[in-house]
């Protein structure tokens, strides 16, 4: 009886030590993962900023005024005049109907 109790105590002590060590390692792991997460978040934010800048850049290059100027002056394009545009109506069943 007494011997059994002593063995149990040793077993519990061992369990406590194992638990304590695993707490330490999991804490360490958690911190490492957290640092990773933090880095990824930062990267996401940077990308977000870049996305905004790219959107801005794209829309600045694509200003109607600029497109119009380049089309007319560099590419010698012009708006189609009256009579050069034909409207084609696509019916719901897929048939194509030319407008008079």
């Amino acid at each position, binding site marked *: 009886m007494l011997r059994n109790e002593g063995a149990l105590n040793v077993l519990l002590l061992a369990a406590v030590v194992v638990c304590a060590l695993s707490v330490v390692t999991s804490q360490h792991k958690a911190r490492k993962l957290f640092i990773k997460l933090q880095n990824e978040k930062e990267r996401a934010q940077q990308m977000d*900023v870049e996305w905004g800048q790219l959107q801005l850049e794209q829309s600045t290059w694509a*200003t109607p005024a600029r497109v119009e100027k380049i089309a007319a002056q560099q590419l010698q394009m012009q708006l189609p005049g009256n009579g050069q545009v034909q*409207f084609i109506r696509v019916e719901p069943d897929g048939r194509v109907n030319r407008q008079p």
Partner: protein
Amino acid sequence: MNYAASAHQNITAKLPGWRATALFAALLAGLLGLLGRGVYLQGIHDDFLQEKGNARYSRVIEVSAHRGMITDRNGEPLAVSTPVDSAWASPSDAEADNSQVRQLAQILGMDAAEVKKRLFDTSRDFVYLKRHLPPDQAGQVASLNLPGVSLQREYRRFYPAGEEAAQTLGFTGQDDNGQEGLELSLQEQLAGKSGSQRVIKDRRGHIVEDAGSLLAPKAGSDVVLSLDRNVQHLAYRELESAVRQHKAKAGAVVVLDARSGEVLALANYPAFNPNNRGKISAQAMRNRAIADLFEPGSTMKPFTVATAIEQGKVRPDTLINTEHGVYTVGGKKIHDSHPEAMLTVAQVIQKSSNVGSAKIALSMESETLWQSLSDSGFGAQTGSNFPGEASGKLRASKTWKPIEQATMSYGHGLSVNLLQLARAYTIFTNDGELKAVSLLKLDAPAVGKKVFSDSTAHALRDMLEKAVQPGGTAPLAQVAGYRVAGKTGTAHKLEGGRYVNRYVASFVGFAPVSDPRLIVAVMIDEPDNGQYYGGLVAAPVFSKVTGEVLRALNVPNDAPLDNVIMPTDIIVEEV
């Protein structure tokens, strides 16, 4: 020799008993004191030590949230915030020799003396050297690595559409808060709230643990406007060329979706570049289409006539005696520029007869006319929620004298803003229903308020179509391939309560008549190049904007392409 023995006998070896007791008590008291202090510090009053401990590893960091984006109805960005760096200094920590100050000044593009003054102004703890630096400049400042000089991340707002929508969008101040226009009225939705977070940092300054969020950051939400960037561009371009051509003081164009009341374009000229606001004049900043009032002139006539038809006083083909162009009310004479003996009600609109309009108005109670104008949205806010919107004046009918009732019927003695006028025309495009205007994109068209019956609205639509055909006042408003309808307006400007010989030319119309999609309202302020009639100055702008926008929106033609017939002589209205 009993020396030793005698010595031993001389010493009394016994200590008094109380000394030991006293020492024990003192030690015990000291121990209790320490224990008590320990319990006090660790258990009862532990904040102080907690705080000291936290200060060694825990930090509160700012989590920034940026301002939401404003886009047009198709998702094209109209206002975007992007981070920039501001250079600031803490003068008490600043250390730099003369060559470093010169280097810094060169990077910042500032005067070296000015930089030096700011850098060593020890009366202040914090001073901005330069705000909103481009990324490359900020990098150079950081690489100088001067003590006491730091960079702070801030946001700056950019407007890709530039001056085209400047007054409508407005702008933000240095701290990214809305100051004008939609930026101001949508501040609630757009503004981001930066939050803070408690974190645990290790020896090297890396964040190792999240110790809980103190205040969650809230990013500003994006706002989708009803504006269409392409339509806005077309409206602005045509407006600018018309204002220049007529040497006018200013002008504005409003394009509404005729079915939903959404504002597709709201352009003003003169304008400013919101991306580079060195000096902006108050003139360029005004959103004239909303903030400026003017007397509408003949563009009001359709509402007078519609009220009379609704009341059963006249029919479109009722003949009105137009008295050969001169009619006296209360001792004052009303003139027509094209005197006629008799005109039908439809011709009163077509030829813009003041006499005819006055007679129709005087056939009704003043109360009835007032109610109808008020129901059409005059004298009230449009519902755009735009800051600084002028609601216009419509005096109570009890104060109207007969001559005033007569002049009001053709748009004198009351004032409107252009958006209000454009909105009122939704009545004619929506079978008598007045729509609320919206600067935000609507998911479903708002339900309007029925002002006139379907048949009255259709009758007016036909009359307004005749006004742009030969024989009307606005043949220059015609558009190839589309049926259009509309009304010209020309009015003297009021200055200090008196009419002066400067004019506001306007035109409001819609197209295509068979199934209206657009309402376009044009206002040109003080045209000064020989012409000032709405039919000559504003109608051509309407024609160009409407034609181009209808094509841009892929609206099918509802008329043959050779439908434009120019008369040799254009009828102008009396003002």
